[in-house]
């Protein structure tokens, strides 16, 4: 019986190191695993960075990949979670011709119904922001598309796990703040 692929959110806590992104992505490249999204940012701990990587692979593969990631010297810890175990979001920006906003009545309705926000309006274009799950940002995309999207961009997934990850414990830091 072959195992099924599942979407996993991999969280990697690291020291700040120039070459680390290269090393981490090489782990996926070496195994021919494509990365669906990747974000890096400061974490909740000072000077500790956090990578969030979304991949679609089997459980046994993700377990092995996690160990390879943890093996990197500057990686403090790595975790993987299924969608059920995380709270996650993505943000999308949609740039549309201003003409549409004023001429097409339905556009305003779409924005309202989708709970998106207008970020900016100029004589030439306006920009809408929508944060949510992939299906929400995709739905809005489909709805706006007929009116002519000038640009569209979606961020990588950001997520927090439901269970604690206890990085401070691993580092022996006191975080009773």
């Amino acid at each position, binding site marked *: 019986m072959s195992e099924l692929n599942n979407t996993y959110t991999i969280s990697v806590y*690291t*020291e700040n190191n*120039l*070459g680390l992104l*290269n*090393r981490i992505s*090489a782990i996926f490249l*070496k195994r021919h695993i494509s990365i669906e999204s990747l974000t890096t940012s400061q974490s909740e701990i000072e000077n500790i960075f956090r990578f969030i990587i979304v991949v679609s692979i089997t459980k*046994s593969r993700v*377990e*092995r990949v996690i*160990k*390879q990631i*943890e*093996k990197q*010297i*500057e*990686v*403090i810890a790595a975790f993987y979670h299924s969608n059920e175990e995380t709270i996650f979001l993505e943000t999308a920006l949609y740039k549309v011709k201003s003409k549409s906003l004023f001429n097409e009545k339905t556009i305003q309705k779409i924005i309202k119904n989708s709970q998106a926000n207008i970020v900016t309006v100029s004589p030439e274009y306006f920009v809408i922001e929508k944060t949510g799950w992939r299906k929400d940002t995709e739905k809005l995309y489909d709805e706006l598309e007929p009116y002519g999207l000038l640009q569209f961009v979606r961020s990588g997934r950001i997520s927090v796990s439901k269970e604690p990850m206890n990085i401070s414990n691993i*580092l*022996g830091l006191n975080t009773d703040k």
Partner: protein
Amino acid sequence: MSEITKISGAEAVIKSLLKEGVDLIYGYPGGAIMPIYDELHKYEDKLNHVLTRHEQGATHAAQGFARVTGKVGVVMATSGPGATNLVTGIADAQIDSTPMVCITGQVASHLLGSDAFQETDIIGISSPVTKWNCQVTKASEIPEVLAKAFYIAKSGRPGPVLIDITKDAQFELMEFSYSKCKTIRSYTPVPNYSIKQLKKAAELINNAKKPLIVFGQGVILGNAETEFKNFIEKTGIPSAWTILGLSALPSDHPLNVGMVGMHGNYGPNVLTNQCDLLIAVGMRFDDRVTGNLDTYAKQAKIIHFDIDPAEINKTVEVDVPVLGTVKETLPEILKLVNKNNHQNWLGKFHSLYEKEYSKVIKEELHPTKEGLSMAEVVKEINIASKGNAIIITDVGQHQMVACRYAKFNESKSNVTSGGLGTMGFALPAALGAKMGAPEREVVAIIGDGGFQMTIQELGTIFQTGSAVKIVVLNNNYLGMVRQWQEMFFEKRYASTELVNPDFVTIAKGYYIEAKKVSKREELKSSIELMMNSKKPFFLEVSVEKEHNVFPMIPTGASVSDIRLD
């Protein structure tokens, strides 16, 4: 108040190396590393730099040195082509867990990214094959980075580290102070073992009727030869080795049942699929060891002792993992296991050995054919060395034969490129081994193909006067590939035949004493002549051209389907 004297980054490199106890470097100079070489010149009484004839040779020499001494091998090279020439040796050290620190020069930091002369992104190139790497652009960072480099290279599961230093950082002045690196908060070199797993493992061992140990280089890297011997002697468990585990247990030890894997011994391969408990000690279930995973030791419970958590369940699912170094875990488990012997079970190995002997080994060691066999050459080396030599092998048929038939009394005596299978490894590695263990006999056994990949290191051997004994087993073929062509590609010998030069003349051209043998009557005396020489010696032996190495597990086959012919 005393005035603080400033030194250059280049001098800081040398001082840092001295603080780490380094007294030997292999390398090759060039533009981007000249300031460091200039300092080397000043410190040449403390630090011996050996100029190899190619940067790849420097890496393998450093590997040979590291493998026989257990110390970190150190390599230097310039930027660009100097740095890229290191890559094969670094990859080899990574896959065979060899501690090595490579220092490369880099273009000045203001030129980074401008495609400057001899600029290559060696950090990017070497990332997938180093345990750690780091670029230094400020002199002040040098001591700390080098301290980290040495700590990472040798701690935990050892491996290669590359430090790339821009030329301006080599010139820049700094205040030198050095403290050794003792910990890195994001790095756990030795994971803790769990008492629970240890107890489970002991219980499995105490209940096993047909246990088999397969040990690898972890025993050697952990300096745990004694602990290992105590463990197997108390439990009485037959013990087989992977190619990198060879020499950790003396060849004549009664529990030594030979080599596992593709060209290993018949008994341990067949019985891998009959044992009820497989105990892996410091080995990583390489595919050359396991054959087809779907049929590998499925009937057995498996215990895996390893220092690297990423090796647990990587290819073979295990029942009980025991993390940590075997230096610590084996004495712990020794307290929990019962004294035992497995004479009947051990007898099975012996009877399968008899079968292998009559079908393969006898003819190999005592050929009835006219042509010389590789194995009889190895046998003569054993006799002359009394099993006390360090044997370095290259890659191919001669490697398999040498590892199958060489005899060892001492650990750290088998040096070969196992995981990467790098042709060209042996000659420079033998130089490094000899410099690391000058009091020992070092014999390199090399194929006619691989010899020509790093043949120029004869120059380094001559220049350093290292009394390496070089044996080329000349079959005029890339023998191992030819064997596969014969067996699996209907004898289509595509580009495997070699028209070779006169090796003896070449060796003599490097002022190395040299001899060629092609007759059995001359073999023994020639080997004695070589072994008795106090200088480097080159011996070419013409061996049977189209000879195959057996036993063999064909790719994709099960270990128990190992073929004797």
